[in-house]
């Protein structure tokens, strides 16, 4: 019995948040990535990569089909290169999501959930896309998304479209707008039409 101490629990743990399988198509990361030749994108990524630390206020509006009214929230984003990202929501209720070295700690009320991003291919692209953009990690972005660059370095737009069809069924696209090394807006459109818009204001 020693070997099975909490075995059942351990077996279950990976199922945390990865919910009913029938509802959730599994995502395979695309193997071949054809880099999108764009000197502007390269320059943007280089610029972003230089930024080691950043703090910004955010306000987010979610439009969910479940809820009659849009859900608004706001708080602070903290980034430390290359793989630490925190989203601390203060309104309407305190909540935090901390991504660190690929491990996500989700705190809602008193309850804390820890998950390895790699175990959640459905969630990973969403949470990691912002981190990879901030880190100027073009390779990480292109593993999952087809990237389109628009505008100039001073006023740029990135359109991220999932390469994998299964992922595309739940996540249609992510659009980012920014100015030089600062992301100003992230808009996520999900497969079922739910949508969220996050505005970001750097603190400096």
């Amino acid at each position, binding site marked *: 019995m020693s070997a099975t101490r909490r075995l059942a*629990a*351990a*077996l279950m743990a990976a199922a945390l948040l990865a919910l009913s399988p029938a509802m959730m198509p599994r995502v395979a990361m695309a193997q071949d990535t054809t880099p999108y030749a764009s000197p502007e994108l390269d320059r943007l990524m280089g610029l972003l990569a230089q930024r080691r630390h950043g703090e910004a206020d955010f306000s987010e509006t979610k439009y969910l089909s479940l809820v009659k009214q849009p859900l608004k*929230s706001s708080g602070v984003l903290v980034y430390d290169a290359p793989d630490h990202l925190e*989203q601390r929501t203060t309104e309407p209720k305190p909540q935090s*999501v901390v991504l660190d070295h690929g491990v996500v700690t989700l705190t*809602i009320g008193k309850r804390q959930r820890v998950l390895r991003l790699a175990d959640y291919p459905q969630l990973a692209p969403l949470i990691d896309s912002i981190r990879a953009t901030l880190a100027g990690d073009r390779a990480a972005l292109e593993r999952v998304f087809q990237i389109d660059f628009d505008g100039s370095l001073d006023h740029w737009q990135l359109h991220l479209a999932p390469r994998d069809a299964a992922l595309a069924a739940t996540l249609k696209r992510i659009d980012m707008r920014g100015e030089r090394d600062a992301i100003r807006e992230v808009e996520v459109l999900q497969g079922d039409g739910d949508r969220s818009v996050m505005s970001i204001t750097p603190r400096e």
Partner: protein
Amino acid sequence: MTRTRVLSLSVWLLLVAMALLVVGRARYSADLSAFLPRAPSASQQLLVQQLQDGLASRLILVGVEGADGATRARVSRALAATLRARAEFVSVSNGEDASQDKDREFVFRHRYVLSAAVNPARFSVDGLRAAIADNLELVASAAGPAAKQLFVSDPTGETLQVIDQLQDAAPPRREAGVWSSADGARALLIAQTRAAGSDTDAQAQAIGLIRAAFAAAAATPTATPTTAVGPTPLRLLLSGPGVFSVDARTTIEHEAVRLSLLSTALIVTLLLLVYRSLPTLLIGLLPVACGALAGVAAVALGFGVVHGITLGFGVTLIGESVDYSIYLFIQSPHGRAAGAASSLWRTIGLGVLTSICGFASLLPSSFPGLAQLGLFSISGLTAAAAVTRFVLPQLPVRLTVADLAPLGTAAARLISRARLPWGVAAALALACALVLFHDRDRLWNRDLSALSPVSAGAQALDAAMRADLGAPDIGDLVVVNADSEQAALQGAEAVGGRLDVLVGQQVIAGYDSAARFLPSDQTQAARQASLPAPELLRSRLALVANGLDLKLDALQPFVQQVAAARTAAPLTRADLDGTSFALGADALLWQRGGAWHALLPLRATAPGADAAVDGGAADAIDIERVRAAVAAVAPDHVLVMNIKHELDALYGSYLAEAVHLSLAGLGAIVLLLLIALRSAARAARVVAPLLLAVLVVAAGFALAGTRLTILHLVGMLLIVAVGSNYALFFDRRAADHDPSALPLTLASLLIANACTVIGFGVLAFARVPVLSALGATVAPGTLLALLFAAVLAARRVPTGASS
């Protein structure tokens, strides 16, 4: 003379034939259960049964190292797929999605009977509002895209509640979709064998299957093209109780064969040098062979089963009987006076009797292995002595031996110079006693693992793999005994309620219970009764949805699924099949005879997690508080125990018992000598060198920092048993006032002792602790016994000889 010969030989042959018959039909057991105690208290019995064939004994931990993560994951999947198809394995888990899907589906489908949060209040308007608002927060969080799909079926979050109930430890890390070690360098699997862990043959077969499946999987060319840098080759690692017993058996067999071949070769060479005659050599080994035969037959008749380990040790123990024929051949050459011969037999007979007294003290031992050893040695020695006495002289073979007088004379001269005054001997004994007294608290190793044949490296690997799987070795445990499955589950639920309080107080960090994934029918019915009828639920939901701005229609799946759950048949053990909870159920709930046992392993609070743990002694559970907390549930049916403590206590009691029995054996030997020698002084002279040898050996171990185990004790008993022969021969010589016989006595004793020292000395180099402990005790001990017997007895050689 001829009639005596015919009678002796026919009785002998008849007995040999009978023994052969018994030996041929005996049952042999190769497992290590000889060193597990028999029928102790109820809780200990449970423990021993668990060790022998509980689920833990059936688990094989498998690790795959080398190459890259993707290749390891591929091998892990291929290995699991191959093994799952075999009837020898009940289940194979490696963390891949297919197995997780079944678990998720199970939890999702049965969430309303599994969730401890389901009660009437939860489904009141207020309860629903609170639960739904809570889960809406998750939907609005960054994890929302994953959470919202579940929300419409399960807005109160029962699925997550169940997962939280079941999740007690950090999950194994996953790499490329399968379990891996914390550093990601090793893919991990758990295989559950159908056969019990104590079935070493079946375990060996299962291990063979795993190796074959791995070889096949590793041989398949990798899909990804090989890189310029050659990858490290794939490597298979195995651990677990079954692996340990198979390894131990292989090692013991291997060592037994290797070492006994070596010592046999050495002894045979020595005896050939002495006898200078092959027939004499073969006849000299006849008593040993007959003794072994008689020993096995006696154990088979007395115990029903002969343990392999008994066989191995026993043959070594009765190796003492090689000595008898040596005395016979060397000390009674042809033409020796009948009086001297009968005196020789009296001495041998007394030696056999003292040995029997010593080994008889093993007979009442509760350690089956020791009791078998005792019976084996007693019957073996008796048979060997009888064959030496009644059969060897009757054999129609001319026995020749080399002239050993020069050797004996040289030895006698040496001894006459190296006399040990009794005062010095007493001082030596005192010094040894002081050493032992000084170290009295760390003299004995009371840790059962001291007997473990598992190497430190293998134990470390096992611990690492367990830690990676979040399944460390078990410490404390609550056991519920009941007469039905339902009663056991109800008991587990009642105990769980008490343990929840302790978790809140941080006395324990958590616990496992079968009732978490298989609640009792009573609990399931209560949870079902908490669910409102569809109309009622819909009207309550309408109120809640309005306040939370939710669209009511979206929650239609919830209403339907609650309606279905209200009338669903209760969840049974069979429903767990195919999920990883089946493994948990087998581990935590089992039946033996008419009795059901539910086990609730406790988890200690992490070190440094909280200072509330008394005395800062984190990582140790306050077992008395647990006992007090669960006492009220059903004192007669609930046991709280610490496995290691329990096992060590068990071993400690056997050790104490063995010490007492050995002392009793020593007492019996002294009494026997007193009666036979009719002189307290002579008895003391016989016993003194033996005790001195034992003291010096024990003090030597203490000085070397080696803690004594039960096998060292058996070794000491053997020093007395074998050494008594030497001391008795010197005593006989001293009493006979026959100085001319001294050289021959010395020569025979030297040869006999050399054989014993070779036999056990070789054993001392074994890698199996039980074998090396015995060898390291007996080899120096018997040498010292001979030496002390000689130098102490030398003073008794009549003065006439020295002039």
